[in-house]
């Protein structure tokens, strides 16, 4: 087996230096080595979206990226976005709309939704459905999630005007 490789990266604003095996994926690195368990693993093959995190501002599926590839990058997880307050309004909308049941998909959903809302001020329902269509939710039926994202978009849009 190949020897561990040393990596340095920024995770939720903190510098992290670690030794990782080259085959370790970013999701397992975050969960097991950094104990940032908010990033969830649903499929480990890039389909469900539960492991979505931000790397250098772009959302990625952390099960499809190796930890060594994250060397030198800035990684943001749901814990970081929650603590900074960046998605507080989105989370409030999710809570008010009961847009989560078991909550397992939710970190990835919030990541993907925030990504859309950063790109587009006024996505319509179809656009929201389309953007979130890489994220499985097995509990909710999606409608509440779409409603919550739509509401957040409207409120944020209103603030800007």
């Amino acid at each position, binding site marked *: *087996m190949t020897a561990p490789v040393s990596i340095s990266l920024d995770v939720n604003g903190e510098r992290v230096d670690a030794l990782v*095996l080259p*085959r*370790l994926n970013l999701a397992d690195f975050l*969960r097991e080595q950094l*104990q*940032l*368990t*908010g*990033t*969830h*693993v*649903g*499929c*480990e*093959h890039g*389909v*469900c979206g*539960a492991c979505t995190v931000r790397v250098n501002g772009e959302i990625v599926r952390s099960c499809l990226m190796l930890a060594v590839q994250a060397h030198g990058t800035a990684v943001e*997880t*749901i*814990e970081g976005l*929650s603590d900074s307050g960046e998605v507080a309004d989105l*989370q409030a909308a*999710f*809570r*008010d*709309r*009961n847009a*989560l*049941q*078991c*909550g*397992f*998909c*939710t*970190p990835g959903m*919030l990541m993907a939704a925030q990504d859309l809302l950063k790109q587009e001020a006024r996505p319509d*329902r179809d656009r*929201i*459905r*389309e953007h*979130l*269509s*890489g*994220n*499985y*939710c*097995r*509990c*909710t*039926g*999606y*409608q*509440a*999630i*779409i409603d919550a994202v739509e509401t957040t978009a409207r409120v944020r849009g209103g603030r800007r005007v």
Partner: protein
Amino acid sequence: MTIASANPEILSELDRPNSYIGKTMPRPNLERLMQGRGLYVSDMEAPRMGQVVFLRSPHAHAKIIGIDAAAARRVPGVIAVVTGKELAEVITPWVGVLSHLKGLKSAPQHAIAIDRVCWQGEAVAAIVATSRAVAEDAAEVVRVEYEELEAVTDMRTALDPATPVIHPALGDNLAFERNHDAGEVDAAFAGSDEVMEADFIFGRHTGVTLEPRSVVADWNAAEERLTIYQGTQAPHMVQNIAALHLGLQEQQVRVVCKDVGGSFGIKVHIYADEMATYALSKLLRRPVKFVADRVESFNTDIHARDHRCKGRIGVKRDGTITAFEIDDLTGIGPYSMYPRTSAIEANQVVNLVGGPYVTKNYRARARVVFQNKNVMCQYRAVGHPIACSVTEGLVDLAAAKIGMDPVEIRRRNLIADDGYPCASPSGLRFELLSHHAAMNKLMAMMDYDALRAEQAALRAKKVHRGIGIASFIEVTNPSAAFYGVGGARISSQDGVAVRLDAQGSVICQTSITEQGQGSESLTAQIVGSVLGVSMERVRVISGDTDNTPYGGGTWASRGAGIGGEAALQAAKILRRNILNVAAAVLQSSPAELDIAGNAIVNASDGAPRMELRELARIIYFRPDTLPPGIRPELMATRHFVPREYPFAFTNGVQASWLEVDTDTGFVKLLRHWVVEDCGTLINPQLVDEQIRGGVVQGLGAALFEKCIYDERGQLTNANMADYLVPMSGEMPDIDVGHVVSPTSETELGAKGAGEAGTAGAAAAVANAVNDALRPFGAVITEIPLTPQVILTALGRI
């Protein structure tokens, strides 16, 4: 949404001022989950924890000739490699039968296969290592020699004399058969103007909980206690079963269930690999963690709904349905699951067919057969989608044959809303259903006539849209009739303990569990309402056999109806106790006092007399100042189970509006409506979202989901890319409405709502597709309705 109160004149605890019952309240536990600060079993770690990986059979049916694990044991980091024979030293095998399902048979099943594997995915060895990656590496160098045996895969030939018998000791591959004959079926068919018949085919599908099944088992050799952290719907059942097969007392086993990443009935069973994990912890005297990966989930999470059902309906010209007849065949894999058994679904299909209708003439046969495929068992809305699809498919066929509108034929046959109590053709007792009120409400919500006009106009433009209607009944609030009477130690009663703490807040311990439905929220709402305490002051503890009353957990739509009633009754006792002591302190009488807004108030004018916090302070810290003879009891426990009706039946109706592209075979869902009667709504938003989630699971079954096996018993699409589930882009908006007929068996009046969405969605979609295809004369009675199925029916391929 409107809610009509059925009994406005009866006032109860729930009509108290500031009641939370019937109000949409945000769930208290969401913040944690949204911030990524939940605690799912897959997140858990323990000191010295080993990770187990199961080496699984690549063959559907084979003899195990030998296992050579020497190389694997030498891999650095490997703690142990354990075979079935070695594990059998600490855990006994089981047989998944229940005595009330007469004739049900199954074979002894081991935690890890010993001599023979019976499905592709059955574990043959466990590799425990310091990390999952190491265990997987080691698994690759375990050598297993198999001798392949012929696999029994097609349920239609499973009973043929030429087909090998999977468990020779059982004599044949028939696990269970039930026959039912009520009324005058032959005479009714003979007297019908039309008799329609169809073969309904249901794809095998599975739950795909987003968090796979996960267990951490931790045997403490010093305490001689096993703690099992598991995402389960029934902690006390797990406790009982683990103790039984490990040779322990129940008190030596504690089951803790924190956050659960989806359940849907998948996590109400106990799987062989979970049993193996408990046993490995005991054997190795250290914590062991098992987290299924996605491929394992597809191969080992129970599958469901593999049915072929021949159905017949008789009808008169005036629309009167004269009789139903079904012949259902279902394949359950090589073993009946333990302890709930795999015959319940077929039994349920027999129970539910024809359920919404008045006809008493009903004949049914259900046969359950063994196969060399993954085990099949109860999944959300057990049997309901099959029964509903067959019944409603037949009703639509009959309507089309006699040229009657599908809504009209239903109106002529649905049990009248004032016709209760009554019994179904299969002998189920109905307390109070509301089929006609629900149908009327549905018609108004969807504007049925306008939709029909739109459909006709579009048809002229070669746009093929369809409307599908499906009425259904739903089993909820199960009593001991489900499992207990058959000898299974699965509690049908639930218990809640409520206590007032020293600062006037309330702690409830409940035996129902939370998997996202909102059990915590509904418990807090009920207790807060009865005690006059605000929601933020109520804390709910669940999912811990050491710290909650004994009970069934959350499955079969029983949390609100049974656990909610226990919460209500416990809170009433505590309320009485609080008022008794408050009366003594305030030199008043309990009748003159009430609790509201976190304070003791005058019953007459609501004027505050004393903060609850202050009362609690006196009771806990200055009992010396209480009048003599007063012994306050600030904790109360109550248990509840329905006794009068073995199940609280509910009803509902769904409608689907969709478009079929007759060139590509693709179906586009445009809109979906549901009207459901679950009795008292505790939190309308939670009910609606339960129903929406259930509908989408039913839509998945209707259009996408299917476990595809080849003839050798290989599951060919065991990954999320090839097994399709509904995504946000394909799903329509779903309108939910309610009719409210509370059950009078409880003070709360709540029935379940968890199965409703799944029960009728596929039937509504199938009927809508057939409605759209009517101009082509194509009738499809198979799900999932893939483009291939549709184009084949249209004669295009």
